[in-house]
């Protein structure tokens, strides 16, 4: 079964239709999704700013990461769960939405960026943990993360305008 066929089938399931036509549930899920970005992107941004040497410079990087990342992770889970529900409400529409594709691409890159960082530069954090401004390679990771997060927010917000601009 092709991806398009699967997405069409998904959109015709009864729960998808109910969610799409719901009086309160969809809007509640959407509200949680949008507002939780303050937790997910908010804490991720503070960690990135530490990597850039722009905030909490007297706190060891590993401390900032250890104490904030659990909240980033909780936020991430909420974003993914609510995001999946929002996708499920109108799968074909999301699938065909150019901005949605950009958003998912940026999200994948953001996750990759973190994973790669953890596997490489962060393994040697003890070398620059106490530096107010970490080494250039680390700053690049922080900068890339912030740019990708900004792109995710932009693409997500613009999804509403697909019909208008690419209809």
């Amino acid at each position, binding site marked *: 079964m092709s991806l398009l066929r699967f997405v069409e089938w998904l959109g015709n399931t009864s729960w998808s239709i109910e969610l799409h036509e*719901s*009086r309160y549930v969809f809007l509640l899920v959407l509200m949680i999704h949008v507002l939780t970005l303050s937790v997910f992107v908010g804490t991720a941004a503070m960690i990135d700013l530490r990597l850039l040497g722009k905030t909490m410079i007297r706190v060891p990087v590993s401390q900032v990461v250890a104490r904030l990342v659990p909240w980033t992770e909780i936020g991430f889970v909420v974003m993914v769960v609510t995001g999946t529900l929002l996708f499920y409400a109108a799968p074909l529409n999301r699938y065909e939405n150019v901005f949605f594709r950009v958003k998912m691409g940026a999200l994948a890159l953001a996750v990759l960026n973190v994973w790669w960082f953890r596997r490489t530069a962060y393994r040697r954090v003890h070398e620059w943990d106490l530096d107010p401004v970490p080494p250039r390679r680390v700053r690049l990771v922080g900068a890339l993360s912030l740019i990708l997060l900004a792109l995710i927010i932009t693409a997500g917000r613009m999804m509403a*305008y697909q019909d208008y*601009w690419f209809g």
Partner: protein
Amino acid sequence: MRMTVKLLGVIVALGLLLVAMPARAHHSFAAAFDENKAINLQGTVTKVELVNPHAWIWIDVKGQDGTVTNWGIEGGPPTNLLRNGITKTSLPIGTEIKLFGYQAKSGEPKGVGVFVEYLDGRKVFMGGSAPGADGNPTPTSK
């Protein structure tokens, strides 16, 4: 150099978007309705989509010359229409209704709706982005 990296990211993202836009601009709905293009439509219902985040009502409108155009009018989310009395069964296919709203900037047969008017005169506000769609007086209305 006090500009945050986020702002840089915004500019990058916008750059990408703006590059993508011109190619499609003349096919598009142009992102907005034109407050100077008020539309008074009368026609038969072909489809009612009571979906989030915006409901759509589609009607066939017969022009002076007999040609039929299918118009799509956007409203608010289902909760707004339901509160005002429009349900999935209020507008069966084929019902003759009037719609008042504002047309898309692109000139397509689409627009944002202010209210639905039944032939008996009953008005139901569509609760969306159109001025007056919430039932309150607007600068452009009396």
